[in-house]
Each structure stands twice: as C-alpha cells, then as structure tokens.
C-alpha cells in the first residue's frame, strides 16, 4: 500500500512539473497551413494551378465573353437571364449588372491568387523562383489589362491579404497602365525565351519571354485609351521583338485558321500561332472542360450530321443553340472568305440531302422577348469535335495569338504614318491570305479597314469591344438594337456597387448613377 501512495505522490510531483507547459501551437489536421506549404514542386504546381483556375473561371464561361462580344455587333444570347444581355447589347449596364460584377470580382480573385502565390513562393524560394515569378507576374499583368480595359480606374494591390485598416484605393487608369508596363518588363527579364524551353513539352502553360512581350504589344496598342498617351512606336518595336524571335508562325494554307481552333490545337502541328490559351480537355471536371464551347458555341441539335459541299461539319453533339451571331456579323465577311463559312446561316442538309435546319438571323427588335435560345446564327469558329463525351470538347481556348501581334504592328505603322501602308498591308496579308482559295492580299484604304479586318479575324475572341473603343466606335456602333449613340462614359463599365459598399475607398466611374 505504501508503495502505491508513494507513486501517487510521484504522479503529483510529475503533474506539477508538466504544469510548466504553456505551448499553444495550433495543429492543423485536415487543412493546410499556408505558412508551411509551397515546398515541393507538386505543392508549387498546385498553387500555380490555382492561379490559372481562378483566371479560367472568368474566361471559361460567358461572363467576360459577353461583356466583350455581346456589347457589339458580334453576338447575342437569345435568352433572358433577367435582361443582362439586353443591357449588354443596348449599352445600359448598371452597377448591379451581374456578369459585370462577376468579371470584376473574378478577375480580382485571380489577382489575389497571383498575389498570394508571389508572396508565398518567395518564402519557399525554389530554384526556379524567377521563372515562376515571371510567369505569374505576366498573368497578373494580363488580369490588370482586363481591368484597365473594362473599368479603367481600379486599385493596384500586390499583397496577398488586404489590410482592412487600409483598404485599397482607386488608382488612376494611367497609374494602372504604368504598373502593367513595369510588371511585364520585369516578367520579360525573368522569363526564358521560346528558344530555351521545350515549349511543346510544357505548352500552353508556360508564358515565355516572347509571350510577355506580346502582352506588352497589346498594352501599347491601347496606350492612348488606357494611359492618355499613344505608344505606337513602342508597339512596333515590341512586336518586332516577338516577330524576330521566330517563336511563332502563322499556318498559312487555305482554311488553316481552323487548325488553330481545332480540338487538337494543343499539338505542335497546330499551336504555332497560339501565344496564350486556356488548356482544355474533354475529360470529366467542369474546371478543365471547354465550358465556353458548351455555353457559347452550343449549336443547334438539328445541325447534327450536317454536310456542306459534301464535307461533314463534324457536328454530332449540337443541342440548345447557345449564343448567336447577328446578321450584321455575317455581313462583315466576303462570300469568298473562308471565315464566313464558320458562321452558319441558311439551309443545312445531311449526307442524304434531307433538310436539317434553316438557320435565320435575328429579326426581333424586341430584345426583351426572346423566346428561344435557338434564335440567331450559329458559329463554329472552334471546330466541332465529333463524338466527344458530354458536350465539352478539347479545343484550347485562345486568348492571344500571333496574328494579333502582326495586326497590332500593322495598325501602329499605319497610325504612325499612312505612308507605311504597304508594310502594314504585308503584315496583315500574312494572315489574311489563308482565308481565300489561291490567296489574297489585304488592302488598306483607311484606318477603318484595319478595324473591320480585326473584327473578321478575331471574331468572338473577346477583344472586339476593346478594338471598338480604341477606334472610337463603341458608342456609335449600330446593330438591330443599338440604334442611337451613347454618352462617352459608356466606354467604361461601372464598378460593381457591392464592391463600393464593402470598400468605401473605391470611386465609381464618372457618369454612373445606378
């Protein structure tokens, strides 16, 4: 018994000694502590994946596309959704417009992902730190280009967590421009050239030096609008860096534009023109499927098995119609232009000659009463993929391609001096000629011709609103529904009201009262 008591006393003593423990470390079990992550390649890749995942969220679906294309004569969504497409088309966006909010918040979420990645990867300090930083900085710069383009004056934030005591304030558009420029230059200094990487092995994720330079071309091209100062000379100089690097080329056979937009456009044979794209696989998983295809290029089910000139269009998965091109869109092309064939209008037959569908353009001027998601013209710019599982396809979604660099340089040359006409024509012809049997040279009679050709070439590639603004035509354009001019403030979209509510330091763009 005595022994037992002695051991109790011993436990006593021990307990008093243990009492000294005052460590309050918090152990996470089923979640990851951000402070200890970003160590292995896999962990860093998972964080990179998030950056792209966030970015993809904004671009994979209708939101960004609809702000850029549905507000022009390129397209419409013939279904209601509470009138958001009507607001797009009629240029009557308010600060509570849902997709406008989603693009703003989604783009900032992508920026947040880049910020937290940049902050954390620096702590992890991997051997390829500079490369990773360069890539993500370039991606962040692209996000800011989307914002400077749509909203103009936005806060510049480079820290992972916004300090509630010091909420970010609106920066002027010119300051945002300067930030993007310096970031891209920094990225260019860190990124490897196409020559030095096996681009095919890592395509399309890696943003190379040339890709970042191409981003800079886009920035300089819009410098007059975005910063107040034209930078045409810089467009030319930077575009030359890209062109002279030989990193990209234009597939120039007849109809080869369809190769760039084909389901296998990630293959070395077909990705020569692609500078920046979102990777897509038709495998299960919403995030990585071509949601754009399902939503934006949803085709009429009646087109299944359609044949044109004895050749199958490859459509066997059409369903509900999806967004549509306008008749105005169809009319921008010559009837000999291959690209007109990518817009489906009129009667379509199957191989046995049976009429499948007669696709007619919009005629309904009452935009609020679209009855049918199948109204309007279909578009098969992204080449349909036969026998895909579900309604999603493999086509990588293109955000920027080499043709744009050539067109940008041409535009800058022409704007600098109409005397550069020939050089400008030659640049555009490199691309233009593939759309005609036997080839065709492009001729510039006025600056407008360049806008029109951009409209034709980059149809539905989410740059047309930007182009119209740059050419001063966004507020004066005409469609079936947009029949009067807008006040100038419509060149910018409103900052979402909910964001102003949660951050009083934000300033609404002038002109917006609701």
């Amino acid at each position, binding site marked *: 018994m005595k022994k037992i008591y002695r051991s109790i006393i011993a436990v006593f003593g021990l307990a008093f000694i243990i009492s000294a423990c005052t460590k309050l470390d918090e152990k996470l079990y089923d979640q990851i502590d951000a402070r200890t992550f970003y160590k292995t390649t896999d962990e860093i890749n998972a964080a990179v994946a998030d950056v792209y995942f966030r970015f993809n969220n904004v671009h994979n679906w209708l939101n960004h596309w609809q702000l850029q294309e549905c507000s022009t004569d390129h397209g419409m969504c013939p279904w209601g959704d509470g009138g958001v497409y009507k607001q797009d088309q009629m240029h009557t966006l308010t600060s509570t417009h849902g997709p406008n909010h989603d693009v703003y918040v989604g783009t900032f979420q992508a920026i947040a992902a880049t910020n937290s990645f940049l902050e954390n990867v620096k702590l992890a300090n991997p051997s390829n730190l500079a490369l990773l930083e360069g890539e993500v900085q370039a991606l962040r710069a692209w996000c800011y280009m989307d914002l400077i383009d749509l909203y103009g004056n936005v806060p510049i934030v480079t820290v992972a*967590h916004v300090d509630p005591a010091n909420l970010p304030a609106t920066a002027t558009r010119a300051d945002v421009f300067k930030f993007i420029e310096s970031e891209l230059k920094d990225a260019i200094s860190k990124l490897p050239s196409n020559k030095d990487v096996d681009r095919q092995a890592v395509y399309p994720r890696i943003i190379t030096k040339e890709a970042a330079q191409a981003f800079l071309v886009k920035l300089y091209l819009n410098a007059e609008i975005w910063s107040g100062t034209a930078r045409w000379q810089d467009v030319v100089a930077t575009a030359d860096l890209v062109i002279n690097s030989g990193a990209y080329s234009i597939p120039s056979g007849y109809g080869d534009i369809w190769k760039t937009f084909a389901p296998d456009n990630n293959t070395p044979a077909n990705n020569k023109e692609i500078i920046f794209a979102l990777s897509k696989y038709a495998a299960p998983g919403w995030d990585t499927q071509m949601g754009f295809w399902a939503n934006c290029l949803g085709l009429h089910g009646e087109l299944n098995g359609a044949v044109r000139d004895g050749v199958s269009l490859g459509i066997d998965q059409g369903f509900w119609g999806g967004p549509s091109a306008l008749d105005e869109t169809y009319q921008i092309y010559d009837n000999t232009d291959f690209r007109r064939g990518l817009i489906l209008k009129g009667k379509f037959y199957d191989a046995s000659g049976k009429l499948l569908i007669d696709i007619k353009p919009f005629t309904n001027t009452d935009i609020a009463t679209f009855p049918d998601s199948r109204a309007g013209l279909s578009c098969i710019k992204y080449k349909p993929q036969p026998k895909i599982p579900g309604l999603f396809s493999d086509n990588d979604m293109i955000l920027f391609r080499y043709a744009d660099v050539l067109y940008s340089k041409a535009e800058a040359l022409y704007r600098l001096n109409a005397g550069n006409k020939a050089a400008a024509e030659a640049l555009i012809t490199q691309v233009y000629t593939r759309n005609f049997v036997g080839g065709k040279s492009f001729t510039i009679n006025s600056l407008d011709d360049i806008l029109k050709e951009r409209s034709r070439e980059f149809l539905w590639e989410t740059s047309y609103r930007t182009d119209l603004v740059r050419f001063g035509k966004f507020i004066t354009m005409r469609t079936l529904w947009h029949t009067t001019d807008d006040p100038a403030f419509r060149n910018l979209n409103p900052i979402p009201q909910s964001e102003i509510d949660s951050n009083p330091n934000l300033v609404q763009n002038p002109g917006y009262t609701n």
Partner: protein
Amino acid sequence: MKKNRYELCGLNCRMKKMLFVMKFTIAAFFMGLMSLSAASTYSQNTKISLNIENATLIDVFKQIEAQSEFVFIYKNETINLDKKVDVKVEGATVDKILENVLQNSGVKFEINNKQIIVTPNREIPSNKSEKIIKEEIQQQKKELSGTVKDNKGLSIPGLSVVVKGTTTGTVTDTNGKFALSVPTDAKTLVFSFVGMKAQEFAIAGKSTFNVTMEEETVGLEEVVAIGYGTVKKSDITGSVKTLSNDQFNAGVVMAPEQLMQGKVAGVNITMQSGEPGANSDVLIRGANSISFSNSPLYVIDGVPVGFNTNGFSNAASDRMTTLSNNPLNMLNPSDIESINVLKDASATAIYGSRGANGVILVTTKKGKAGQNSVSYEGSYGVSSLRKKLDVLSASDFRSYMKDNAVTGWVDGGASTDWQDQIFRTAITQSHSLSLNGGNDKTNYRASVNYTNQDGIIIASNLEKYTGRININHKAMDDRLTIGLNLTNAFLKNHNSANPEGAGGGASGGTIRDALRNDPTYPVKDASGAYVWHGAFNQNPVEETLVRADNTETYRYMGNGTADYKFFDFLNANINIGFTKENIDRYVYEPIAGRIGSISHGHGSHESRASNSKLLETNLVFNKTFGKHSINALGGYSFQEFVYTNSFMESSGYISDATSYNSINSGNKASWNLYSGKASNKLISFYTRATYDFNRKYLLTATLRRDGSSRFGANQKWGNFPSAALGWRVSEEDFLKNSNFISNFKLRIGYGVTGNQEIGNYGSLPILSAGGQYIINGNFVGAVYPTQYSNPNLKWESTAQSNIGLDFGIFKNRLTGTIDLYKKKTNDLLLSFTVPQPAEASNTTLNVGSVENKGIELELNGVILNEGPLAWEAYANIAHNENNVVSISNSEWKQAAIYTGWVQVPGFTGQSTQIIMPGEPLGTFYGFRFASVDANGKQQFYDRDNKLTYTPNAGKLGADDRAVIGHNQPKFTYGFGSKFTLKKRLSLDLFFRGVQGTQVLNSTFLDLNDKSGIYSAIASGTDNARINIAKGAVTNGIAHTETLLYSSKWIQDASFLRLENVTVNYNFNVSSLKWLSNFNVYVTGQNLFVITKYKGYDPEVSGGNDSYKYPRPTTIQLGIKANF
C-alpha cells in the same frame, strides 16, 4: 484495572471486508439475491495461527486480539495470567486454542460473539458465585445499541457514534442501527454526520438510543461547489444557485437540463424538441453572442466537457432530423447529487475564457461512509400528445370542397386523422441500481441504469445504458485523499423523420406531411401499399417506419483526483481526466420505400468522435488567524480537445439486404466521402483568494489567465479578473439578536469573462484544395487560401457587474435572494465580406457589442413545519433586457444582419429576424400585416403607413419592413409548493411560465395557405389535395394569394405551464430488516399549459416554430427502494 481495548477494525481488515462485500453483492446481483443477511459465525470461521514459547496468557490473548477482532474481557485480580505456556497451532479456531492453553490454568472462557470472557474456574475457591463474577465483568463494559434516523424518518447509515473524548466508537449500519461496548465510566455519546447537527446524549442509565438527527440549519451552512473548490453558502459573494437532487423536476426527462428547468431564476431553458434525447437551449442571463454559442460551460465532477452537440445534417437524405445531440444524456439523472449554476462574472471568472455564458457544475453522488446498501429505482411512464392542431377532418374537407365547388379533386373515400396515425401513446421505462458503501477511509458508489424511452411520434425511440463508479479513499493518516470517477454511456436513438424545419427543404417531415395530407385518403390502399401524393413525396407513416435512421452514441468520462494535505493549512491536489465519445449515424432509405425507390436505395454513415485530456494541479491555502480567515487557491490547467469526423454515402443498391452496413454496395459512381480532424488546446493559470473578517466582511478576488490555441498570435493570452465583496449585515451587533432578521447579506461583484467557443483555426492562414487546372499536360488540383490569418482574433469578452442580497427572516423560515446585474459583451465575432482582391470572400473579426441587464428574485418559505402537515413554498422570477449595442467598428461597418429563415418551403432565403443596434437579439423584422380586403387580398402597411397590396410589385419592398415582434421574454418565472403529511405522504406542485415573448408560427402560416386545396398537387395525375388549418377556412385570404412572411404570423407565446405534479408515499419499513426505505410516486408532467399560442407548444427554440416535434404530456409511476 487492566486497560481493556476496543477499537475499530483497521484498514486492511476493512478493505478485505469491502472487497468481499463488493464481490458478494455483484454475485448477488446476478443471482437475483437481494438479501444480504450473513449470519455471524465469526468464531467458527476465524482461523488463527500461533507460534510462541514461554509466553504468558496475556501475551497469548494479545496475539489473538492482533490477528482477529476478538476482545478478551477479564478481571485480573480473579485470575492468574502470569502462567507461562508454549503454543504452536496452525489455522485453528479460537475455542480450540483456548481450550488447550487454558487447560489446568484455573480459568475458563466463554465466547460471546467477538467478546471472549475469561472467568476463574470452579475449582478456584471463591466467595462469589460464577454468575456474580460474570455480571461484575459485564458491568465493566456496557453494551449500547440503537437506531438513528433523519427528520424524514429515513435511517442514516454510516453515521458515527463515539464516546466523547475517546476513540471508542462505531458507525451505523445500512439500517441506521448500531451496537457498541463502552467502558462503564463512559459519560457521553456523540452522534455526528456530515450535514447534520451533532448530538450528544448522556449514557448514564440508558442502553438504547433512538436518535433523530436534524439537518444543519437549512441552506445557510450548505456547502456549494464554486469551481476548483467549495465554499460555505454563507460565504458566497457571487451569484450562485444550488439545486440539490431533491429539488429536481421529477418525471420522464427528454434532456437532463429539464431537471432544473424553471427552478433557477435567470436561467432560461428551452427544449429544442420533444424527441427523446433532444438537446436544449440553455441561456443564463440572456444571449451574449451573435455568431457563436450561448451555451454555458458544463463541468462534470471537475471536468469541463466539450462533447459534440451539433446534429448530423450532412447525411443529406430527405426528411432527416438535424436534432442536436445532448451531451448531458450520458448521465443518469438519479446519479446527480446537485447542480450548481454560476451566474455572475465574479463566480464564473475562475473559468475565464469559458465563463461568459455562465457555468453549470454537475456533481454526482458519492459513496457515503457506512455499510453497504443497494438502491433500486424504477419507473414506468406514459407519454402522449398534449394537444392536436386543428386541421380539417375528412368531413370538414368534403364540405369545404362542396361549398367552394373545388374542381378536379377526387374523394379518397376514407376518413383518416393523420395526426392519430403518426402520434402514439409512448412508453418509457427506466431501471437504476446503485451500490453504496464504505467506511471512514474508503467509500464507493456504483450504479447502472437502463432507460428505454419511446417518442410520441411512431418509431422514434431512445435506448440508454449508463454505468458509473465513484470511489474515494483516504490514506496516510488521512492526509492523502484519492478519488476516481468513471462514467460510461451508450445511447441508441431511432430518429424520427421530422427534420425540425430547417432540414425540410422542399418537402417537409412527418408532422408537416401528416397535417397537410388529404384526410379523405387512407394510409394504405387495398393492396397494402402506402398511399402517397406528389406534394409529399412520401406518406408520413411510411417515411418514419420504412427508413432506418439510427444514431449510436458512446460516451466515456473518467477522472482521478488526489489531494495531499502538507499542513493543516496547505493542500495540493491534482485532477487528471479523460473524455471520449463516438457518435455514428446510420441512415438507409430502402429500395422498397417510396423515397429510396427514386435513388434505388440510399445509405449513409456519418461518424463523429472526440476526446479530451485534462490535467489540473492546484495548491490550496486555508487558515484562520483570529478574526481573519483566508482561503487561497492557485492552479494550472491544461485541456486539449480533439475532434474527428467522417462521412460516406452511396445510392443505387442492388438489394436492401445490406442496408447501411455496406455503403460500398451502392453504385460506385454515387460514392461520396470525406473526413476531417481538428483540435484545440487551452492552458490556464488561475488564482482565487477569499478573505473573511470576523464572519462579517467577505472578499473574493479571482484572476484567470487563459491561453487558447484558437486565439490569434497577437492575442494568445487573455486575463479574466473578478472581485466581489460580501457584507453579512446580520452578523453585526445591531442585527445579531434580531428575532425578525436571521440572515441578511449584501453582495457586490464585478468581473470580466470570455467566450472562446469561436471555432478552431480561425486565426490561421489556411489553404484548401478545390478546383483544378492542366499543368504540363496533367490535371493538377488547385490549392488556394480559404482563410487569411487574423493574428488579432480573440475571445468574445463579457464584463458583468452584479449586486445581490440574500436574506432570511423569521429564523430563516422565509429566505430569499435578489440579484441585479448588467453585462456587456464586446469583441463579438462577426463575419464581413472581404474587399477585393481576395480569394477568401469572408473574414471573421472581433467587432460587435451586446448588452444584457436584468433582475432576479428567488423566495423560499417554510409555511408550516410543525404538526402533521408541512408546507414549503418557493418561487422565482427573472427579467432580462437584451440589446444589441453595435455590429460595426470604425473599419468594418454594417447596418444590420438579417437572420432566421422562414423554415417552410416557398420562402427560400427570406429572413425573419434582424440584428441591429438598438434592438434585442431575436427581433422579428418583416411586413406589417393590416387586413384582408373584400376580395381576399392581403393588405400591408407600407413605410408611410399607407395600405398597400402584395401584388403591386415594387410598391411593397424591402424598405417597407419593420420590427414586428420580439422573441425575448419579459419575465420568466416558476413557483411551487411541497406538502408533506406526517412525513410520509408528500405532494409537489411546480408551475413555470414565460411572459411577453413572441414566436413566428411558421406551421400556422403554412397551414393557412389554401392554394394547395385548389390545384392538383402533381401535374394532373394526382387527385388529392393539401389540407389546411380549420381557421384557414375563415381567414378571408383568397386561395390565389401568395402568403407573405408578416406580422400576421407572429404570435404571443406567453404561457403558464403546470410543469410537474408528484405524489410520493414513503412507506414505513422499519419492521423489515432487509429494507430500509421504500417510496412509491406518481408524477404528471406538462399536464396543462395556459397560452394564447396556436401551435403545439409555445416554448420554441429559436423563436421559429416550423413543425417542431411537440413536447408530450407524461404520467410516470415509480418506486425507489433502499436495501
């Protein structure tokens, strides 16, 4: 004269005996032998071994005394004990040894129980007869005996009976009887027992003592648990309420909190449901927190518990109840000795960051010194629905259809009262057996309980098994006290299919489906198949009976304590505790059932487990210097909680054969699983000092320093101080001799406490996996921040001041307590939208502030205590005023938080309550209903007090909403009386009520919607219609109207309830040796409710009544027997 010895059996012998008794009683259990009479054959059973040479007889006697309980009695001048003998025996009985030893010694012996009387042999010449000598010897030892009872006539076992000024004494046996030999010169006998007044009696001329013990001055000298110690009630400076087990509410208990419901002023307990095992909302002095728990901290025998309480809503099957789990269910109510409620901050500050919502200390029954006893408590209860809701009967329904010429409806041909189909008379039975015993060194209490409680909705049931052991032992000259408490509980619920509103989604649950079902349709068709309609998806009878939905809960709790007294004034103690729980919910919707047929069988299994470890070490100083008395405590505590969970589900089963036992039998594509784990740690240092001057002036100061892993890096440690003063005015000279005032004490206290139930990991930067992207041609899961670090995250902090008065008048026949308090909670954690750029969209910050102030009054009166009829009465009343002070700070601003959804289908996302500065929590916010016009259109007041109609879209908007009611009682009260006739028959009556509160009757709103009567409930194929409340027929609202959430559906929920009536008879069993106490009682619970409220029951958790499982009326018959 030779000194005779008699002493109490030593430790070893006691332990052996105790072990024997324990073994014996356990054996007796299983053999069904309840009699414990072991006839004494001590002298024949006791074997003695001796090996001594050349010893005197005295030496031999001493050896025998040392080895046994025998005592030798002799008169040394009459016999010669110096004779030398050699003795060598092995395991012989005492008579055999003595026969040998005393051979030819001139003395003889006689064994009288354990006394051995040695007298001269006849051969020795003597002028006295043998008889006279014997008497002379006997007179030297006087045999005393008697029985001790308490003032209720119950025998008191384990009471000590001692000759004053000596160690000679004994303790009473199970039946309160004692027998004692005392020296003839003994003068006074002292009877003493903890909690009773010691009594002394002169021995002279008496040999039988039948003593009635009186409890020590009721209430005043009661010892009260205050956390890490106890204090005399008279020395308390904080607001503390003690409820002993005889004050508990009797009857069938849904939840252990029900034991004290209505009995403690300022403690508002609302049962979440009438389902067996339901949890309840316990609010002490109003709600402090907006986002987190307002539940008090529960401490069971010194172990703060943190068991899971949340319902398992993840197993997303249609109509699953999300009833939360009640951790206190692990205790058998009859094992609880007392419940102490610490209300104000000066009392709860010793629990620091966990004290803000009040602390409830549960103390279980401990063994009592005395011999072993066995108690049995058994009860049988019958529960039924107190009131049915008035919906149309089949004939009402037919008349309505006829009167209103409703087309498309086809009479189902039956007359079904669906409420009768789902409600039943439910049986509850409970059996408890406890063993209790010990001596002055060791005592134990062990108990087992089995309860089987049916719910009043068919198929709902709770089966409960609990076992408990408490052992205490003193050693090392009583300097060391060690204790052990163990509890095990296994509970098995069969859950009803009533999701209590929130989980109902687009469908409902058993009660909703029953109330709305077409009463002209039968439960089953001619083929025996359940009849169901599109609107319900399932038949209310079928949905409860067909689905397997079981929750199995295992809980274990154990702690060991050791206390060592270094000096009379200094003790050190440790408390090491461990808790463990496993909860599993198994659900299977069979293919054969209606819902299961859609998914072809749906099974899920969800598990939650938790464990906690506790280590506490304390030093206690206690000394009185003249008029100064100091009691000081210093301690350290470490507690760690670990929680894990897992879930799996599948559907698409081939057969029902494996049910939920093989989730992988479901279609692989439907498999869904996840798991998780979290933990938190709390490290604390605390100190408390009480100082008492001259028993008049009392001072208590407390400081706790808490560090929690939950707090942010900059706020890891928080200090929680309190101080309180007490002045026992009645001890002052001017009142000391008052005949009127017998007790008058003023208390004043202030303290700061915290609420750290703010979730785990709230301060850390956390990454989660979600989404994916293609990196280098491979799918890569994306990892992204879901929470930013908040190094400033901390507890919610409550500062409370309290002024109290305790009084007793007319020799404490009327006692009472008044408390006034005010508390303000700051640093409330609220969620805010994070400005962009941010990946995590919300953040939680210490921002808001809420205030509570109130007054509490308790009265206890002994109205009659002389004569055959005794009458005690008691009452309490409390008023609390709650007010939201702020929900913003200079950086983070918001005007209001909208909360509380209308929990019936069709109102998705409509909030019913508002949290805004200037209004209390629980404020209803919505449209103000005006009237119904002649066309049956609803009219409301708009923001300008003008009448407006619903359909005028744009006219009635969010800005027209206003405050339309409060779910905050103005008063809560309880009162009761206990009548006792001739100490045998007693009657207890207890009423309680709530005044001035309102409830949103969503059930009523739903049942007033007539649209379902006019339209087919499934596109054209179903001819049944949806039933309505009787009142809906005449409510004037057109059936084409869409009902809106408005003031029309807010109802007065004040009530007065006859909570409890108990008639108890305590039989006189003094003539039965084997039975010491026998009671039979009948208890009626919830017999009537006076209220204007139109639902099943006005007491509604959260203020939103949407088809809540109603609380039944219960009649219970029970016995309590003590052997």
